[in-house]
């Protein structure tokens, strides 16, 4: 590894997480970290625990063992709404935008918080509409009427309204057309340039390797491989081993 | 693999049973009557436990079953002369079964909350009918009648004495308990408990869940009606107050306090609640609203002790 990670405290650190769904032991001691402003990829086949890791970080699922730290502070056990306000954004698999709320109202859910003036809110909205002009057009439409790609953009824009330090992105390209997939790649780039860290769960290997600085590969609920994204290519044996069919 | 209840269980059972037999001989009349009433309300609560504790269906309809048992018995005792004990019981059980069938048919297709609310509303329907059909039911004033003789055909017939009344009630309640215990431990009972745990899975396995629920409601209703019959015989009157849904609420309270899913728990719960009521009114006077502290205890138990007084013994009592 050639990342100077030991110097600064990572933004998000996950230590030895064991998470269960009922009796199923999903995460067997996952440990990883994301530095400030870093894009980190989390790869693996279906069902290995990638989404569960994100959900555990977000407090949607409580781990039986292990810790989650944010900015050096332990956040395991805190309610999700507190984590959102601390600066963790979450964009789940299948988007989960509020279907019966308008695009505008969806964005509002992230804007209406402590310490936000009207100017700041307007500035954030303008930024979102600049990144996603489509959303500006559809701002009065109900979320459920948007196409899959548009909903994905709304889900990301909504998370951006929280002015997060890190966004947990769960399979953003799933079910999207290739043109949209490259758009997602561009969005991730822009966010990275804005200084937002991203923990990206994906099955799309090329996109992930392109966008991330480091990647972890998960299998059966544990980290099996960890390296800089530049060190591996799509055709590498490591990729074939853990992600091949 | 049959599970045999432990010796300790049967010893405990026998001890308590013996105590209850002896009770009327040693207790002053007030307390004798108290114990008898605890047994009757306990039977009502126990019938409700079959649904709540074993099948996982909360019902607020038991006041209707109780009430119809009561009025059914009243009908037999008023219409047929000389008043006959067994006829009263039969009429009461038939009345309760009828109500149970009605409720079961409509409600068993509904889940959880809907079921609870509709049983509540149905018991109110019965209340309104009984309250307004004054010619038949005596309306607000209820019906008064005389107690039949304790008669075993061809063998024995005599007036009830307080002691024999108590023994009769004890016998009926104990027999009911043993019967319900057998039912809950039978394959039928196992299916009910499986419905409580996971209704969808039980249905997926292939059990006709609705039919099981209907039978459960009917069984529950019949025993609630039996409690109503006993009440009528003991007190010699029937009144619409008992059909008001608050009676169902009482049964549920006894269940929660005593511990659902234990059958005995509700009887203990009834005893505890009625005893507390007695204690509070003795200390603070008749006018004191005993339901305020008791209600708060009830809420507290739901939050902190949801398994009830006997909840810890639930497994053991069901072996």
């Amino acid at each position: 590894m050639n990342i100077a990670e030991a110097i600064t405290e990572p933004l998000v650190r996950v230590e030895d997480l064991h998470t269960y769904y009922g009796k199923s032991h999903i995460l067997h001691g996952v440990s990883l970290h994301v530095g400030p402003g870093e894009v980190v990829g989390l790869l693996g086949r279906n069902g290995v625990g990638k989404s569960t890791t994100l959900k555990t970080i977000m407090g949607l699922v409580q781990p039986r063992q292990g810790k989650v730290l944010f900015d050096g502070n332990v956040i395991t056990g805190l309610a999700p709404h507190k984590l959102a306000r601390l600066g963790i954004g979450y964009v789940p698999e299948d988007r989960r935008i509020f279907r019966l709320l308008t695009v505008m109202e969806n964005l509002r859910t992230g804007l209406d918080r402590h310490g936000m003036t009207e100017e700041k809110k307007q500035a954030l909205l303008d930024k979102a509409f600049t990144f996603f002009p489509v959303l500006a057009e559809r701002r009065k439409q109900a979320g459920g009427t948007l196409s899959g790609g548009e909903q994905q953009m709304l889900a990301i824009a909504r998370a951006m309204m929280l002015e997060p330090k890190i966004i947990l992105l769960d399979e953003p390209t799933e079910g999207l057309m290739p043109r949209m997939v490259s758009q997602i790649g561009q969005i991730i780039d822009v966010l990275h340039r804005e200084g937002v860290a991203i923990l990206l769960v994906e099955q799309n290997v090329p996109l992930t390797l392109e966008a991330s600085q480091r990647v972890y590969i998960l299998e059966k609920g544990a980290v099996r491989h960890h390296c800089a994204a530049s060190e591996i290519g799509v055709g590498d044996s490591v990729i074939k081993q853990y992600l091949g069919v | 693999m049959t599970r045999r209840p432990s010796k300790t269980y049967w010893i405990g059972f026998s001890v308590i049973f013996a105590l209850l037999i002896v009770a009327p001989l040693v207790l002053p009349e007030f307390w004798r009557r108290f114990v008898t009433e605890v047994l009757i309300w306990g039977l009502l609560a126990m019938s409700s436990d079959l649904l709540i504790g074993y099948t996982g269906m909360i019902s607020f309809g038991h006041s209707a079953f109780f009430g119809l048992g009561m009025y059914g018995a009243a009908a037999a005792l008023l219409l047929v002369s000389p008043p006959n004990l067994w006829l009263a019981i039969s009429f009461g059980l038939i009345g309760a079964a009828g109500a149970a069938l009605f409720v079961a048919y409509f409600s068993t297709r509904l889940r959880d909350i809907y079921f609870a609310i509709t049983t509540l509303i149905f018991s109110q329907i019965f209340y309104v009918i009984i309250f307004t059909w004054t010619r038949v039911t005596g309306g607000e004033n209820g019906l008064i009648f005389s107690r039949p003789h304790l008669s075993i055909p061809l063998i024995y017939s005599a007036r009830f004495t307080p002691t024999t009344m108590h023994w009769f009630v004890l016998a009926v309640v104990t027999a009911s308990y043993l019967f319900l215990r057998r039912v809950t431990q039978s394959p039928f009972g196992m299916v009910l408990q499986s419905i409580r745990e996971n209704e969808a899975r039980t249905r997926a396995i292939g059990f006709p869940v609705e039919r099981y629920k209907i039978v459960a409601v009917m069984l529950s209703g019949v025993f609630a009606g039996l409690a109503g019959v006993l009440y009528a015989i003991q007190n010699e009157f029937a009144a619409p107050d008992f059909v008001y849904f608050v009676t169902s609420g009482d049964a549920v309270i006894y269940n929660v306090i005593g511990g659902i899913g234990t059958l005995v728990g509700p009887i203990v719960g009834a005893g505890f609640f009625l005893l507390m009521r007695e204690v509070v009114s003795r200390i603070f006077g008749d006018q004191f609203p005993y339901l305020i502290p008791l209600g708060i205890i009830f809420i507290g138990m739901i939050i902190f002790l949801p398994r009830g007084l006997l909840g810890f013994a639930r497994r053991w009592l069901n072996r």
Partner: protein
Amino acid sequence: MDAVVGFLQAIPLDQLMIQTVNGVVTGMILALVASGLTLIFGILDVVNFAHGELFMLGAYMGVIVITATGSFFLALITSTLVIALFGAALQIVTLRPLIGRHPLNTILATFGTSLVLQNYALWQFGPVSRKISEPITAHFGLFYLEYPWYRLLIAGLSAVIIGGFWLFLKFSTFGVWIRATSQDRVMAQAMGIPVPWVYTGVFAIGAGMAAASGVLFAPLVGVDHAMGLDWVLKAFIVVVVGGMGNLGGSIAAAIFISLLESYASIWVGPSLAVIVSFVVLILTLLFRPTGLFVATPK
């Protein structure tokens, strides 16, 4: 043809009109009570058995304020606010600890609460019912009756409150939070919405609505500790018929059932007219169990 004419002539048109007005008036109050109930069920998944008692306490609060100040509107506002706060406290103490547990628990907890509140009222205020006089005693001629303006005022105020709430839901921040929470509780949290407080707020709003209905209705009947019981039953029927959690449905169902009952009372008398609501309930359960006024039956 003669039979039809005969039939039409037999319909007491003036009574029908009067009962229509009555039905709408009662329906609006019922709608206000039921709205709170269905809101609490839709957002918190709680069947609030104590709702009738909140109605009753609202009415008593109204009595207290009127006796002290003589102002009906002050009573209405004070009662609504005080009981709303009380509702919030109630939810925090008795219902928050039960979040995540089987719904049976909350049904029992609210049932226990209703017992405590009823008996408290009985203890504090005694069994004799109190009366509030109507704030407006003027009447107008409606067919052969002197119809009180006050009844129309009640209907109007109920409509205003419901309408005001609807606007609140649509345009205010908290309203957006409520709607987001009801659609997707998990993502609402992920967006920083303090869902536990949304729950408390919704319960408080429901309680406030019940209290307002209590004050509005009080001049029509006597205020006593048991007045909540009949209303809560009716309200439950309305909520089931309207579709649980469906606000518009409850309002429609409230008016529908009240109208039917008012019409029925022309022929059978008020005490039997309540059977109408039972019949409507049974028919709904048989044919459209998710609610008569729900768009697509599930």
